[in-house]
């Protein structure tokens, strides 16, 4: 029963969303190639999965996201730690970080495709860039939020620098870091798509372009969007699960 209670609001809102969508289509009388009704999209999605249209593109995009997130979050943890513990580093680096974050990735993507080619590398770079900022800031805030009294405890127990990081700073910073990763992982999806638009062979972003420009198959376009959204939600939930595993018990 508890299970139903927890999932009921989500189920209800999903149904409501579909109903509103259908209503909009019916009332506006828009053609299928402008705004397809939900059943057309779902049917096209099912067909695309069955025919194996979506899978290779989805796999390509997922691998870009995975690598990009790994590189971006990994470097963000390191740089975030550096920024947290070194005022000099923070003063030197943070203006550039903010500037980099403000520059729209859509503008940088073609440049990066030029420099890194149209293979996996440029997508990984773009994803990593887009993931970097939220995770770095979250790491920095998290590390800084470690209670000074715990650090004094560490000193009284002669903890080495690494031990302080591993046993005191990192666990204390985990809630913040994981929060940053939740944001980062959804941004990584955007990064992958934008990276593909700047030049790629395969991927859900390419499928969007194909559906729209070559096939003029708008239900497929929407089905691809649904797939992308599902991937984003799935990744977000994955981070949530990791979060519960790591910090659920003691929070």
């Amino acid at each position, binding site marked *: 029963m508890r299970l139903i209670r927890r999932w009921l609001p989500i189920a209800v809102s999903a149904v409501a969303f579909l109903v509103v969508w259908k209503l909009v289509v019916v009332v506006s009388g828009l053609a299928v190639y402008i705004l397809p009704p939900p059943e057309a999209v779902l049917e096209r999605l099912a067909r695309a999965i069955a025919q194996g249209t979506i899978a290779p593109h989805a796999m390509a995009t997922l691998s870009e996201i995975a690598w990009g997130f790994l590189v971006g979050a990994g470097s963000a943890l390191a740089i975030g730690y550096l*920024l947290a513990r070194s005022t000099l580093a*923070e003063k030197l680096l*943070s*203006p550039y*970080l*903010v500037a980099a974050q403000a520059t729209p990735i859509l503008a940088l993507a073609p440049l990066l495709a030029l420099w890194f080619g149209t293979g996996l590398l440029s997508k990984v770079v773009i994803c990593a860039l887009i993931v970097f900022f939220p995770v770095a*800031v979250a790491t*920095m*805030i998290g590390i*800084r*939020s470690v*209670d*000074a*009294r*715990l650090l*004094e*405890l560490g*000193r*009284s*127990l*002669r*903890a080495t620098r690494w*031990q302080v990081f591993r*046993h*005191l700073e990192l*666990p*204390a910073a*985990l809630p913040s870091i994981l929060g940053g990763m939740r944001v980062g992982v959804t941004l990584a999806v955007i990064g992958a798509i934008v990276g593909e638009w700047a030049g790629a062979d395969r991927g859900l972003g390419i499928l969007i372009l194909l559906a729209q420009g070559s096939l003029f198959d708008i239900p497929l376009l929407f089905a691809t969007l649904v797939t992308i959204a599902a991937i984003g939600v799935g990744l977000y939930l994955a981070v949530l699960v990791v979060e519960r595993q790591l*910090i659920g*018990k*003691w*929070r």
Partner: protein
Amino acid sequence: MASLCSVAPARPLGKADRSHRLAAIRLDNVTRSFPSPAGDGEKLMVLDGLTFEVGDGEVVAIVGPNGSGKSTLLRLIGGLLAPDSGSIEVGGVAVSEADPRVGLVFQEPRLLPWRTTGANIAFPLELAGVERTERDRRSSSLLDLVGLTEFARAYPRELSGGMRQRAAIARALAHDPSVLLLDEPFSALDALTRERFNAELLDVWQRTGTTIVLVTHSIPEAVFVADRVLVLSARPSHIVAEVAVPLPRPRNSETLDSPLYSGTASLIRAHLGGTREEHAADEARAAPVRDVLDRVGTRAWFDPFGPRG
């Protein structure tokens, strides 16, 4: 594997062994100042030429007005701070840094929220590189010592304040230290619990024979627990008096009724003495108490305007 294990004396948890009454702690003319909190570059002298000794296996309580540097004194002995001048020795060896021979219990339990109680108690051993089985064994016996065996796998947030402080004491005993320093460890507990914990502390002391230095605000607590009570003056502090506590051991609730008990307490109160105005002046001069709420919020990063901004 750290070599810290060899520094700690191989002393099993057993009966107190006070046959060698060497000075466990010796302070000689220790001074310490801090930059003034007003930020005007002035130096605030907190401790002024403190000299005293604590015998091996003794229980000494330190009382004094707010801001008299009791906590600073404890940190000096614990090796977290260095004196400006003078010397500090523990077990005949000069103190230069934090030492496993000295266990510290702070005012707050300071347990790591992400570790179970058992893991928290084993934490010092883990840092020192002690192997898993030995760690677990020690942790079990320490849990038993402070009566927390059923809570070995509970997380700190599931424990009451008193239980957490017990765990903190157990943790301080992890390396089987020869000296245990406690900085107002029970001040966050209510009076009844406090009395009980005083008795429990003595119980632990009976079984381990560790030298104990207890900083406290509570004169009744000091008298009940200690062999001697050192009374500090207001800042810059020196020792006003050393009051021996003539109460026999073991001490229990009947001790509280003894005239010697109230007499000693009055004596200490007298030494602390001074009029209300002096006390008020002391309060005003005292460094601001660091409240938990002071730490709310983190300084903004990338803030070119600075904290005053």
